[in-house]
């Protein structure tokens, strides 16, 4: 449910201020920030041991945790210790499951990616035709899209999920209420998650198409006598792809964020639900590990999307700080 900013220009979205090696350093800097944030939150209340040790732990276990964390050393050293543990994939043990946090998180990563990926695929599949139609027909169609899009962004995803369950699972009994494992389990969660992306992407496609349809390039194609259908779907659409891909990385990120709530509603065994379970049971090591790994993964995805954009549109490479 992150609306990243008010009314974004897709080009202004990223501070594309650096060339490739700079992009790499930039990602590194962000990763550093992510790790710092994850580390500091634990120390925000003063004594992290209370958070990182099971409530029933003995004094001996507490003392051991204290030395593992290096709590008697300066903060900087503690951070480096934390970082080195993290980079080795050691986030400690979960209180609830008595397993290594890393194992738990990595096991749940797959379902979350399936969910987010499916939602994104649905969003693309729906937004492209919707946006194209709205742009091509204009007038009432554009207004309808605008309205639909606003509604889509206003509806809370957890509520939408429950309403879909009410309709399709409880009343019509067509689909399972929740769970994981078959294709029919994926339908409702993916649909729910995709709505906000459809709302954003379809508007993006529509505005991009409008601009493209009025461009000289398209006018020339029409003048050459090409079929309208071909003009619209092949030539104009091509221009829309770059902004869509630019948005893709960000959308995936928004999806991962909204997936937390959708996973809870549908009992989907992903990292979002894992984090909420950890929250409910005050399993801090699990929560910290999940946030760190998710943050890391997210930065990677964004960096990948950045690189893809740069390849698709060389103009983006030379933008200075803006």
């Amino acid at each position: 449910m992150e609306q990243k900013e008010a009314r974004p220009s897709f080009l202004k979205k990223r501070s594309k201020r650096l060339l490739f090696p700079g992009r790499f350093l930039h990602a590194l800097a962000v990763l550093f920030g992510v790790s710092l944030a994850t580390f500091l939150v634990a120390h925000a209340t003063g004594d992290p041991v209370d958070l990182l040790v099971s409530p029933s732990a003995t004094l001996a276990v507490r003392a051991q945790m204290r030395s593992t964390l290096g709590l008697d050393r300066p903060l900087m050293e503690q951070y480096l210790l934390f970082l080195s543990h993290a980079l080795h994939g050691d986030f400690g043990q979960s209180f609830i499951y008595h397993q290594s946090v890393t194992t738990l998180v990595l096991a749940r990563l797959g379902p979350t990616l399936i969910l987010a990926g499916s939602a994104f695929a649905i969003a693309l599949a729906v937004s492209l035709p919707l946006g194209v139609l709205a742009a091509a027909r204009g007038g009432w169609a554009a207004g309808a899209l605008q309205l639909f899009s606003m509604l889509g962004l206003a509806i809370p995803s957890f509520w939408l999920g429950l309403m879909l369950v009410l309709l399709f699972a409880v009343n019509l009994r067509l689909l399972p209420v929740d769970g994981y494992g078959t294709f029919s389990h994926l339908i409702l969660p993916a649909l729910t998650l995709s709505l906000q992306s459809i709302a954003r992407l379809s508007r993006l496609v529509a505005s991009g198409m409008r601009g493209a349809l009025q461009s000289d390039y398209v006018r020339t194609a029409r003048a050459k006598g090409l079929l309208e259908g071909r003009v619209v779907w092949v030539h104009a659409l091509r221009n829309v792809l770059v902004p869509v891909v630019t948005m893709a990385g960000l959308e995936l990120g928004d999806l991962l964020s909204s997936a937390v709530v959708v996973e809870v509603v549908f009992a989907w065994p992903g990292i979002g639900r894992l984090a909420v379970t950890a929250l409910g049971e005050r399993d801090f090591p699990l929560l910290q590990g999940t946030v760190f790994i998710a943050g890391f993964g997210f930065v990677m995805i964004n960096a990948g999307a950045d690189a893809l954009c740069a390849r698709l549109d060389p103009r983006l490479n030379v933008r200075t700080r803006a």
Partner: protein
Amino acid sequence: MRLPFTRGARSLSGLIGALLLAAVLACAIGAPRIAPYRPTQIDLRQRLLPPAWEPTGSTRHLLGTDNVGRDMLSRIVWGARISLSVGLAASLLGAMAGSTLGLCAGFFGGPTDSIISWLIDVQLAFPFTLFAIFLLAVFGGGFLPVVFVLALATWVNYARIVRSQAQSLRAQDFVTAARAIGVGAPRILRRYILPAVLPSIVVVASFSAAQAILTEAALSFLGVGVDPTIPSWGAMVNLGRNYLQGAWWMATFPGIAIAITVLAANLLGDWLGARLDPRGR
């Protein structure tokens, strides 16, 4: 990215947004007078009553009752207090923090800008809901932590817009002239830059309030809300989840309330954006 809405249509939608928001505000402020019952008033013998238009419903409870007989309509009216107060407080805090940081970054440039931009990027690097859960796990629920977390969610929106505007303003003649005379930076910021960016801040505020309300609803749905004793729309949906099969109204109406409020804020923001910044972006 705005599609060509006729000015009339946008004005109409803006008006609708304003009216809806006013209605929600009225509910929040006038809850004691508007709501037919107290939100915590339990009436066991009236539990799980469907809305009035259903055959077993009653006009004494227009939207039905929940699992312990509390009136749904009253709870939704009272719930507006939480959503609006949290939304406004978070928006205000986010606006202050974000605008200040954005101004500094855009105006001063250099290392200040680097650090603040880095902060922005780090913030955007996190799937926010996860980080919000993380923070609230440490600080617990409650009004202040939730407002702080929501402000954290929205400050970036302000910072980016203000930063880019401040940057372009910085290069303008009147600023250069002021600096030449020796006017101090704080004064320049306050007297010249801030008023110029204020319209954008207002627009962003509307959208950020919407975002904050949505996020607050999600957080209370997940159980880390503001106050478990006062009904919050998100918490009401969570409660209704257990009764989806037998009492669909418990989850449905609070969600509609959330959607209406968020939609209203977005419509208003759209209209404000068009009015205050006709160039569009």
